[in-house]
């Protein structure tokens, strides 16, 4: 088959799966959170309460799509689209199986980092265009949080890049045939996990939308499907971070041969999504200054140290 056509088809398949997965994750998260809190969660509508997804979608589509009169309209409409676009574009470089990747780019890692940085624009512009104080504060927090955590997110990955000797994600996965990178790069893994969590602004690091202090933060003025886009974008970001942790540190599609590579990849990603939900259930939100202090005072030096040590070890070995 023509490689271009194959890429387009794969892209469409990824889009299809991801959009459904985002809906499915709403149910998964609600059920898992409930179970972790000794509740049952939504279990009435349909088998295991699965139809709650349909109900949610119907609800979110039939709500009034209201733009506040004081909002900056074009930016207000644009902001939720950005988070979806960047999250989806981030998936183009993720290899799901050998050869099964939308864009087999030589700068895959850089592309992903660029896309996740672009995603911040969504939150900042959304907070700014809403033209209300809480939204602005949410956007402001997001920008500072992202700025702090983006820095060592990239640095945490550099250890991987040194070990694999490539920025291509497929090569990185192939380089883990002998040993998953989580073993030699455990510090990098923890750092990337924390940074990814901050990047997807989910609960331990959900300061931009902190419900108890900022009402809903940057999406406080959004309603209907515009809010839905933020919501789905957040779940996509979660899936993306999980997929990348698996790709970078847990051997991507690699696994015993009795299951096909795509299944291994999906299973590992699902496990990490579950882990992120567990984090949400267990860890309280840090204070804002604590968050920034952690980022700059501990995590950034640690990632630099990790980078230097990895580089030295690789140099000595191959030197």
């Amino acid at each position, binding site marked *: 088959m023509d490689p271009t056509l194959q890429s387009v088809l794969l892209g469409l398949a990824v889009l299809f799966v991801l959009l459904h997965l985002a809906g499915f994750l709403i149910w998964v998260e609600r059920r*898992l959170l409930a*179970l*972790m*809190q*000794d*509740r*049952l969660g939504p279990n009435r509508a349909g088998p295991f309460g699965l139809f709650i997804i349909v109900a949610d979608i119907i609800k979110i589509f039939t709500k009034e799509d209201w733009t506040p009169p004081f909002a900056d309209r074009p930016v207000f409409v644009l902001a939720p689209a950005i988070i979806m676009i960047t999250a989806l574009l981030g998936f183009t470089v993720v290899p799901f199986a050998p050869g099964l990747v939308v864009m087999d780019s030589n700068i895959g890692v850089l592309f992903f980092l660029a896309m996740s940085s672009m995603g911040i624009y969504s939150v900042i512009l959304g907070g700014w265009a809403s033209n209300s104080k809480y939204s602005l504060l949410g956007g402001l927090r997001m920008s500072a949080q992202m700025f702090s955590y983006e820095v060592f997110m990239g640095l945490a990955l550099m250890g991987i890049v040194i070990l694999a000797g490539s920025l291509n994600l497929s090569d990185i996965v192939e380089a883990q045939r002998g040993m998953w990178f989580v073993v030699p790069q455990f510090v990098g893994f923890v750092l990337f996990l924390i940074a990814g969590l901050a990047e997807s602004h989910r609960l331990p690091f959900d300061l931009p939308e902190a419900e108890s202090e900022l009402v809903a933060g940057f999406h406080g003025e959004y309603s209907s499907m515009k809010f839905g886009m933020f919501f789905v974008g957040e779940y996509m970001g979660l899936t993306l971070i999980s997929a990348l942790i698996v790709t970078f540190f847990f051997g991507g599609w690699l696994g015993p041969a009795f299951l096909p590579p795509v299944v291994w990849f999906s299973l590992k990603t699902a496990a990490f999504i579950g882990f992120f939900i*567990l*984090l949400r*259930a*267990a*860890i309280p939100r840090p204070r804002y200054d604590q968050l920034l202090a952690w980022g700059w005072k501990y995590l950034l030096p640690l990632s630099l140290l990790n980078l230097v040590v990895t580089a030295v070890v690789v140099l000595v070995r191959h030197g």
Partner: protein
Amino acid sequence: MLSHIRTLCLVFLHLFRKKATIQYPEEKAYLAPRYRGRIILSRDPDGGERCVACQLCAVACPVDCIALDGTEDEHGRRYPSFFRINFSRCIYCGFCEEACPTYAIQLIPDFEMAEYNRKNLVYEKEDLLIDGEGKYHGYNFYRVAGLAIKNKDKGEAENESPPVDPKSLLP
């Protein structure tokens, strides 16, 4: 840091704990015998109405949801001509039960009285009155207090002592 990891482990283990949720329509919560739910009017062991329409419950009611009016039968025995409880106002405090001198009004362990129409929450006497004695068995107010009959006032019949004068402090 260690405490965070411990938290994660503990929360993860909660996945497998017994759930606190009671799946209501199928499973029902245990209601104690003295649970304060729906209000009923009970009858004495002989089958007569216990209520003597003294209005004490209506007076005690903090939300004024009880309305009644008293009347007398041919023997001079008082009973309510109508008795109405508006359950959309009732707060199930049980003050009416405490105020009642004849154990007539009682709160029972039943809370399933939801209605689609608010007016259906106004219970009349025929909705409230039950055939049994409710929580207090074997009590008949007139057996204790006596009853004036023709030509004989309270305490004047055989084996009766005159009623206590409630306005006097003397025994």
